């Protein structure tokens, strides 16, 4: 998989050694270099790969992409892709011995940024066939266009990003489908970020609405101070109607309930960890939803892990950034990522692995962070992050533990694998884990997308598409034996509940019940 993982090193190497004078200017050149040691996130890292902190698109160096390799080294070319420029992309073609070189040598070596991904696309359209949005939306040109094709188009300075990029829901199914490992979702995130940054009217209703939706944590943190009032407010007649008319947030959905006690409040009240073990530690990334809305998931995680003898740490944290990526709010996402990386890397330093109960959160920490940002320690966080059930399956004999267990009251579940679980190879884990538990029937309701995709299904203009995508899942759920749904993703859960009226559980809650934690 082509990822932006090594820019940090590359830029240092390039700046230190063979970068021509004046090749970098502006932010790139003047930024403080990262130094080894304890990271001070937000201060000592490289500038964002995508959107620099001041919001300006940096001027590119001379050696930005392969095609320009033969140009005179003084030719200044502005970045056209939001600043994604390789630090080592150029090669000095003048050094080639005309009598003895392989034709490929005329192209620069080193990191070609997303070009390599674009070049790997051989137009098989597997991504388009797996795209849940293209399946219901005539207007959406599909992941192939949004990714490699648009990437090429925007090499030209005068080419705007197509507005349809905002119709991509960031389900990332195209990544999983691509036989050629084209970094499609990375390309989409980048294009969306650039679209929002440079083409979207900041005073538009859509921008404000998207900013609010993607900064759910901010509003949830306020609402959870007065959960009963907040819950009541969303039920005031006309409140959701007003939300739709004023902001374009669909009035079809019920606003999620805020818990009267957040997970963190509960954690504090119970006095933190009840198991201490310096050799068996996990840092819990609970995400916004299990903190503010479904603390029972977080509690189940803690109890299950303590049952297996783990010391649980709950580091300070902000939003994982998933809704922000999906709305092109990369600057917001970066701010949150800085805090998360800083506190998670500290926990990792104390011997912990990072655990998330939301599959979009784990996806974000594992894949999108290192793809999109260059923050000191971000690779480390990525490499130490796991989904909660996944981690137990790798490190504990869960099968042995569950063999012969029995659920007190027999229950059938209709399980839906979230897209972001699918992309981490986790789509089958709940079905497999509970297969041998007596009294539990776990039915996989198929591989269709639930359609809500985080904030996507909350947008007035996307609501119907979202329900159309989800239709197959609703049907399969109703055909399933069980009338309780199960999924790892909080917004998939919302959609499942909305489409079928079923109660939805998280696998950790069932695990808590089964192991008697």
């Amino acid at each position, binding site marked *: 998989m082509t990822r932006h993982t090594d820019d940090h090193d590359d830029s240092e190497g390039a700046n230190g050694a063979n970068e021509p004078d004046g090749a970098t200017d502006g932010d790139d050149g003047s930024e403080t270099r990262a130094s080894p040691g304890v990271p001070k996130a937000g201060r000592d890292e490289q500038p964002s790969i995508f959107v620099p902190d001041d919001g300006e698109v940096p001027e590119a160096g001379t050696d930005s992409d392969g095609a320009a390799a033969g140009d005179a080294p003084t030719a200044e070319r502005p970045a056209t892709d939001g600043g994604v420029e390789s630090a080592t992309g150029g090669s000095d073609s003048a050094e080639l011995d005309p009598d003895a070189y392989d034709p490929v040598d005329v192209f620069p070596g080193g990191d070609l940024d997303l070009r390599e991904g674009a070049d790997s696309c051989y137009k098989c359209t*597997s991504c388009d*066939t797996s795209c849940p949005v293209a*399946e219901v939306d005539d207007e959406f040109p599909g992941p192939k266009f949004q990714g490699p094709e648009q990437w090429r188009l925007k090499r030209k300075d005068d080419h705007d990003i197509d507005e349809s990029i905002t119709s991509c829901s960031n389900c990332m199914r195209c990544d999983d489908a691509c036989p050629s490992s084209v970094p499609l979702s990375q390309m989409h995130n980048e294009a969306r970020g650039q679209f929002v940054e440079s083409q979207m009217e900041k005073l538009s209703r859509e921008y404000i609405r998207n900013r609010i939706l993607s900064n759910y944590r901010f509003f949830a943190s306020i609402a959870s101070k007065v959960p009963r009032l907040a819950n009541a407010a969303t039920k005031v007649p006309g409140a959701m109607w007003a939300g739709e008319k004023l902001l374009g947030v669909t009035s079809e959905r019920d606003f999620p309930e805020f818990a009267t006690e957040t997970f963190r409040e509960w954690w504090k009240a119970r006095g933190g960890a009840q198991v201490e073990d310096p050799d068996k530690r996990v840092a819990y990334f609970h995400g916004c939803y299990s903190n503010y809305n479904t603390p029972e998931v977080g509690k189940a995680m803690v109890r299950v892990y303590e049952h297996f003898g783990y010391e649980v740490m709950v580091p300070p944290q902000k939003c994982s950034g998933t809704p922000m990526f999906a709305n092109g709010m990369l600057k917001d996402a970066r701010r949150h990522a800085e805090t998360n990386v800083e506190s998670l890397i500290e926990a990792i330093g104390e011997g912990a692995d990072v655990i998330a109960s939301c599959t979009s959160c784990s996806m974000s920490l594992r*894949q999108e962070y290192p793809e999109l940002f260059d923050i000191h320690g971000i690779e480390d966080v*990525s490499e130490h992050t796991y989904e909660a059930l996944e981690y137990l399956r790798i490190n504990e004999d869960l099968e042995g533990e569950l063999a012969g267990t029995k659920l007190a009251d027999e229950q059938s579940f209709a399980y839906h694998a979230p897209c972001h679980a699918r992309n981490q190879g986790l789509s089958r884990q709940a079905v497999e884990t509970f297969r041998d538990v007596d009294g539990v029937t776990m039915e996989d309701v198929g591989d269709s997308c639930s359609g809500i995709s985080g904030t996507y299904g909350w947008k007035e203009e996307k609501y119907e598409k979202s329900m159309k995508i989800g239709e197959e899942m609703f049907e399969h759920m109703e055909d399933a034996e069980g009338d309780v749904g199960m999924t790892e993703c909080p917004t998939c859960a919302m959609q499942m509940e909305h489409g079928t009226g079923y109660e939805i559980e998280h696998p950790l809650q069932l695990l808590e019940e089964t192991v008697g934690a």
Partner: protein
Amino acid sequence: MAIDSDVLVVGGGLAAITAAISASREGADVRLVSHKASTLRQASGLIDALGYVPATEPATPLREGPPTAGRELDRDEWPDPEGPLADPFEGIERLPESHPYRIVGADALREGLALFDELAGDAYRGGHTDRNALLPTFGGSVKPTARYPAAAEAGLASDDRPALIVGFRSLTEYDARAFAGRLEAAGVPFDVAGAEVEFAEAFRADTKVTRLAKALDHDEEIDGTPAREALAKAVAPHLHDVVDEAGGVDRVERVGFPAFLGDDRGDAVRAELADRLGADVFEISMGPPSLPGLRLEDRLYDALDAEGVRFETGNPVVGVEREADGRVEAVAVDRKGRETPYGADAFVLATGGLVGKGLDSDREGVREPVFDLRVEQPDDRYEWFVDDAFGDQPYARFGVRPDERGRPLDADGEVQYANVFAAGGVVGGADVAREKSASGVSLATGLVAGRQAATEATQ
């Protein structure tokens, strides 16, 4: 270590599924790990066993020298392949000795097809006979194939009922009139006409086949008319387009569409169209990725589930852990940055060929990236291919060379790992594109590799 199984299958296509189910039926506890969504969705959905025995002699060269690129061939001396074969089994002994069919034996192909018939159930046809069926393909040729989707049944080329081939201007890759012309030129025993109709035009210019299928599945309204009715209405005026040899007009008895007639509810879509048109309806597989391939993928993964095989998709196998005695102990799966060992007693490698990325190549050579198995190849890369584009390309046969139990061999002909077995496209020796044998090779080698791996693991 929690991620252990008796047999671990690496790959997600037809060979991997066949191996996993075969191993499971021998009593092994099986896990399947696939990096990407299954390559089945790239496939036509047709199951070929052996359609041709291609000539391995190159066209006569106009000058002396080894059979490499840059040598001019005599275009008048083009060697013809043998076929289309009526019976795939009778052609096997005329294949080169290094061909996988020759190595694992014709019975493996027979049993592999029988297993497929059982898994595919009523969704597939052709299992009643050893003989190949002739089906029209995307592009207008006729292809010998061993098994075909029920949705394609009414399109058999051996059927002599007059046919209409429907196309849509907006589906640029599919020209119905040219298609019909090529079918006629191919000498099919029926009268055929092609017609471009307006239906897909209601969608965007480059609509995905999945979008069209979904619209038909749900019978969505298109400009106020339900999709199935709208499609039938568009086709109806062309039911008398066929002109027979005598110049008489014949009402068609069957209508062929590009394969987008529904996904989950394909049977209902076809039945309703047939009813409205008063003619049988069939699908013609299009280029990849195709709905027949997607439907087959769904069906086979359901079969894996029913068999109790555990599977996961999304993470690649990136390395192996070897034991001192020359066996493989575990493979490393890259779970988004962290390598996790997956242990097993035996492994099946079914990662595909060059296109499926089971083989990797650069200017230095061709490699098998997971176990670093030997891939036989000429040292000079200019000998990897020959000028004759449709000729006997050496690269087409690249792959690992197995013994009769499916274990890859090293340069000295010795088994590389006692507990590693190979199946499908990663196995060399077959030119599946020219032979029309890709699915058959997957079924035969998958069956053998799966069984042998189970034997190795449970002994």
